[in-house]
């Protein structure tokens, strides 16, 4: 692909990580680590979360098993004919904070978005051994190049708020919250 000719070095030195995470991998990731994620993930944003948690409250089964998975906060633009997906960058994560602890209890291992998480979410992540990553905000066209397959698996009527399954290759991300309780945004702010 032609864009690779101008790809900055930042994307060439990523630590390759397979998702869902193999046993023991999350423990080796630290706040600030730049990773390239390859494998499969699920997506969801505001209404996706509301609907998942509504199902849980009704005691019903979720359309996907989130145990061990990574959940990417994204509402992509529609794919043009011949495209895998449209623009597909991260949405702001704090809006998912009210729902996240419930999903972590199901064994969700990582979330991916942009921006800060709440204190309760950070505590829930520590309790359940989960991490939070961010990817490049406002770079949805670039990030779409790392998505090799996309299919809607639930809530199709939600349009951009459907739950997708993506296959990704070297999807760039940075670890924000690690298992030691560190926060990369706080580290960056303290370094000023």
């Amino acid at each position, binding site marked *: 692909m032609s*864009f690779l000719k*101008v*790809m*900055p*070095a*930042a*994307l060439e030195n990523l630590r390759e990580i397979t998702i869902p995470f193999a046993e023991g991998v999350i423990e080796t990731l630290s706040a600030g680590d730049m990773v390239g994620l390859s494998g499969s993930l699920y997506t969801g944003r*505001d*209404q996706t979360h*509301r609907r998942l948690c509504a199902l849980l409250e009704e005691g019903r089964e979720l359309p996907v098993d989130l145990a061990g998975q990574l959940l990417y906060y*994204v*509402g*992509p*633009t*529609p*794919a*043009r004919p011949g*495209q895998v997906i*449209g*623009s*597909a*960058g991260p*949405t*702001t994560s*704090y809006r998912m904070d009210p729902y996240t602890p419930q999903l972590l209890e199901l064994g969700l291992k990582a979330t991916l978005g*942009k*921006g*800060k998480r709440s204190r309760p979410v950070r505590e829930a992540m520590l309790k359940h051994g989960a991490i939070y990553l*961010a990817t*490049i*905000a*406002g*770079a*949805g*066209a*670039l*990030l*779409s*190049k790392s998505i090799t397959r996309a299919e809607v698996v639930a809530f199709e009527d*939600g*349009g*951009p*708020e459907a739950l997708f399954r993506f296959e990704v290759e070297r999807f760039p991300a*940075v670890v924000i919250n690690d298992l030691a309780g560190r926060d*990369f*945004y706080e580290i*960056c*702010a303290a*370094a*000023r």
Partner: protein
Amino acid sequence: MKIIETPQITETVREMAIEAACDLEPDILEGLVQARDRETSPLARDLLDLLLVNADIASREQMPVCQDTGVSVAFVSIGRELIVDGDPEAAVQEGIRQGYEEGYLRKSVCDPLTRKNTGTNTPAVVHLESHSGDDLRILYLPKGCGSENMSRLRMLPPSAGIEGVVDFICETVFAAGPNPCPPLVVGVGIGGTFEKAALLAKRSLFRPLGEHHHRRDVAELESAILTRLNREGQGVEGMGGSNTALAVNIEVFPSHIASLPVAVNIQCHAHRHKERTLAGRDWSGQSESQG
């Protein structure tokens, strides 16, 4: 007098919606290049490089720069020597509907209570205005809401003074941190009333990057706030460096003696904005439809 038919407005808005989503304006690209060139943090410089690569891919492949193709905001000013043959607001709404469908843009507008998506990205937020002249001017901004959500308005007491205004603007940006996708364009409305301040803040976002307010004291305030944001702010994407904001645009309007409203409208680095002027054709004074 001149006359313009509404299909021309619809077609123009349709084009603007698609172009705005996929092609960043030259002033924003230049602003990102300048930010990259003066950036001292290696990570922030890499991130700015990636944003430029993203803009390049988006333009070449006509794929939206950002998946949040926004809630559509249009300021439409109709010359007082121009007759619009039909409903200008409906023409704009139809242009948005067509552009979002044909441009493969994300439909992000929903009922605020039920959260049910309208499926068309309409209604757009349309502000109709008038001016002296015989043309029709459209300012268009698809507003992403990661940044819109970080915006704030406060009714300050006059005793807060300029210092209070500056503190409120800076606090708003610092509290937002990485959430609104910095480097930002910070739109500020000072004065007027509750709604006027918000409108001034939104309107200020259309000012070309690098231009300052014509009033010297306001321009100096813009520069001083920008310097402070970039010195104390969280930097590119909240990950450090010296580029928390690309610009601070302030608009002012006289306020009540008891009041000092300040609105801060936060805009992300994917600052998509378009401007078009449509000329009408000569009108003889006789409505053709009555022919």
